[in-house]
């Protein structure tokens, strides 16, 4: 239920080492379910750990509900023990020498909660997460999914104002992922807590978060709803990082020539777009439709053709690899395209699915 503000956070390791995070500012609203998404090494986990207090920024401020818990310039640093934040580790970090009940109760014991009250809370949380029957077992005796529930229970027992999750679904199998996703959504809805989690897995990000913050090399690339991120990527990085199959990129910068480039030029002209600032264009494979258009429709769409290199069934959809006069282009068909290698296929893309980027690789808003 708390809002978190990061102000000009810099983090470098060693005295003059390169900055893992150069200058990061963002605001996480109260009751938000925010995901920090990025490839490994992009600084997302460091950011999460700085919010928790397990790492300290080299510069900058972190505020909770407007009050600084870290401010390098003012000499303020609240130790993690005093932050009342809940953190679930990627590997759960359950204490192997304590029973499940003791794991969940430990934080309350530290707060000197009266025994009766403590037991009531512990029982309630364990029941809610369906682990009450394992109360007297040790972590090693539980499966991964159960262990994660224990880790969640251990955190929820303390009613933290902010919940931090490190790759919450990554160690689970497909079925458990769906279950845990529902569980986390429910926790968010019931407690109204502010939840921040990090992941490199866009499925995890898309399915859980209400807001996604995409990071790369210690810098924030875009913040938005899952739909924003997917449909209106702010720059090349976001466009290329998000999407189950990598986006098709057509380079149009100086010196790039070739059939696809001239095709792109025709398309831009067709749509009446000024081609001068366009340095590259991206087209998602799943936005690429296969087949021929009527004369009438072709006037509104970017259409092209090429020869089929390979058709890969993925169960439910088909990846079609197309050779457009020497350049690879991928499309996804949701119906069996009934094509085989060597066939010629036509494809087309609607205007809204054409992502254009300038020389700084930023999105050109049309």
């Amino acid at each position: 239920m708390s809002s978190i503000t990061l102000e000009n956070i810099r983090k470098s390791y060693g005295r003059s080492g390169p900055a893992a995070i150069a200058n990061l500012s963002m605001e996480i609203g109260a009751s938000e379910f925010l995901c920090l998404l990025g490839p490994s090494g992009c600084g997302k986990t460091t950011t999460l750990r700085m919010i928790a207090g397990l790492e300290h920024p080299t510069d900058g401020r972190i505020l909770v509900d407007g009050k600084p818990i870290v401010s390098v310039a003012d000499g303020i640093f609240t130790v993690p023990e005093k932050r009342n934040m809940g953190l679930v580790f990627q590997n759960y970090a359950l204490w192997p020498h304590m029973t499940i009940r003791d794991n969940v109760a430990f934080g309350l014991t530290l707060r000197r909660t009266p025994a009766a009250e403590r037991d009531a809370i512990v029982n309630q949380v364990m029941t809610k997460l369906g682990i009450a029957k394992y109360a007297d077992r040790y972590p090693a005796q539980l499966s991964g999914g159960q262990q994660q529930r224990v880790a969640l229970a251990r955190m929820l027992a303390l009613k933290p104002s902010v919940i931090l999750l490190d790759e919450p679904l990554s160690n689970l199998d497909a079925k458990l992922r769906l279950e845990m996703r529902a569980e986390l959504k429910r926790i968010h809805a019931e407690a109204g807590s502010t939840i921040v989690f990090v992941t490199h897995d866009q499925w995890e990000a898309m399915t859980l978060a209400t807001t996604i913050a995409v990071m790369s090399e210690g810098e924030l690339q875009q913040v938005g709803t899952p739909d924003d991120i997917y449909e209106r990527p702010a720059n090349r990085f976001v466009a290329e990082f998000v999407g189950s199959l990598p986006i098709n990129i057509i380079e149009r910068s100086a010196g790039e020539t070739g059939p696809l480039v001239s095709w792109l030029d025709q398309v831009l002209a067709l749509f009446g777009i000024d081609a001068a600032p366009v340095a590259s264009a991206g087209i998602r494979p799943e936005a690429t439709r296969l087949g021929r258009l009527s004369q009438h429709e072709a006037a509104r769409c970017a259409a092209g053709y090429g020869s089929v290199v390979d058709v890969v069934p993925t169960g439910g959809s088909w990846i079609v690899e197309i050779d457009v006069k020497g350049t690879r282009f991928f499309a996804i068909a949701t119906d069996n395209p009934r094509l085989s290698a060597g066939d010629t296929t036509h494809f087309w893309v609607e205007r809204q699915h054409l992502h254009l980027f300038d020389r700084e690789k930023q999105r050109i808003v049309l």
Partner: protein
Amino acid sequence: MRKDKNINRSDAMTLQTASSEDTQRPQPATKRLSYLLRVNSADPTLMLALLLLVVFGYLILAPVVLLLIDAVTVHFADIARTKQDLGDLTFYYLNRVLVSPISRDLFWWPLAHTAIISVAAIVISFLVGAPIGWLLSRTDLIGKKWFSTALLLPYMLPSWTFALAWLTLFKNRTTGGQPGWMETFGFTPPDWLAYGALPISLILALHYAPFVILLFGNALKQFDTQLEDSARSLGASPATVARRIILPLMMPSLVSAATLIFAKCLGDFGVAYVLGVPVGFDVLATSLFRAISTSQAGASAVLAGVIVLLGTISIIIDMRLLKEAKRFVTIGSKGAMVRQTPLGKWQAPAFAWALLVFIISAGIPLLALTLTTVMRVPGSFSLDNFTLDYWIGTDLGTTALRQGILLTGEFWLALWNTVWMVGLAAIGAGVLGLLVGYAVVRSPVAFVSVALRQITFLPYLVPGIAFAAAYLSMFAVARPPLPALYGTPIILVLAILADQMPFASRAGISSMMQLGREPEEAGQIVGAGWFRRMRSIVLPIQRNALVSAILLPFISGIKGLSLVVVLAVPGTDLLTTYAIRLVDYGYSQAANAVVVMLCVVAFTGTMLVQKIGKANLSDGMGSK
């Protein structure tokens, strides 16, 4: 409601990229300092690391450095001879030990003897140990499990107990005291059989053969038989496979075993003291002991320095090779297969060989030692010769020690001293080792953690007797905050503790590495401060590691002689030094009785450790 908010999220969110003016606002240095203090106050690891660095700088580094300084500065006794002032830089001692007319007896002969017995010990232990390593790891030898404990027995017991056993059997009239068994049987062993190079090499070889058995056996165990198979399938003969595939891959473990044995022989004092000194056969360790006991501080510093140098070189070679060996690790794929070779008709000879090695290296010596303690004349098996006098007798016809060991106050004092001094040192080493592990793994300053790791490892490079010499240099006089410690139990406890730190700190580091940060961070998140985390999370999780980090140093400390023989005085005798004192007086039976008690304690302890947990004898050998 929330949905509305989210739609506008991307606009509402302030998105700033680099080059904001705000960070550049001036920050007073004091504020930044107070920030760093606050950050570190949550985590006293650095403080702990620095504290440990000071403690071990004082207990380990300072003595060794002082020792080296002692080798090149003028001592009080030599002011007249060197015509220099006290504390001046001098080459007098180096000259005396290495070049002067007495250098032959003081240094060069002992050096040659040390070289001879080490090389002989290495060769013999390989001839004995390598086949057994193979039998135990790669064949279906009958009684393999039993053998793999029994054949390590010699290493569990002090090396010089086997020297005493040898003396019991082969002693002749060259030295005084009770006759040996052979003599009683009517055969007088010649001097070359009774004393000197041959028995010393043999005993060291049998004592350290377990190194070869374990290191070579483990390497063979990890060796993927598929590598052999693929060579065979390409047409290589078994001999070619052995020469071109197995041998190169086994090389690191073999050389590692050899350097370890060399380093151990270098520092082994007891065996040469019992079997060499009576006939003037000196090794470096005994020469150093004589220099110390005749108060030649400068010469003993030089000798100790040479031993340290040789020990360091051999350990560095070993570490290099272990690093080399790690390169090979990638070869052992996950699907490594170890096939047992059926011995077939070789089963009986192989079994006989293993049994023979056991009988010679452990059976006969222990039996001889034990039987001697109940015989008036050693080796005479007539019924009236048996007696329990040496255990519980009274009014024996001897000048001193007129009663059995079990009725002698000094024995119980030595036993008690052993238990409390070694026990205290072991507990200290175990706890400090775990703390060192914690500090090394968690220290935010890499330099501190490297320094701490190296310093606690230093005693490993310094053979016991040289380390004891270093402790004399350091603590024979008052070193604030400590008073002069020579003759007190404290110097023994500190020396044993410091001497056990290499193992204890390695154990601590490796168990802390395995622990990882997360359990502790999880504690931090739910509100546990540093001391609470230590008490409720780190130490309980490491309980088993702590137990073995205490017990293994305890066992190794109990049987250690070379370290304590220099530092103990009659009032602070341990079982080991007490036994050696009895040997000096010629009370063979009593000495043997003490040694038998010592073996019982060491053996039970070792078995206990292996029962309790992950601790393995090979860990204690520094094979890691």
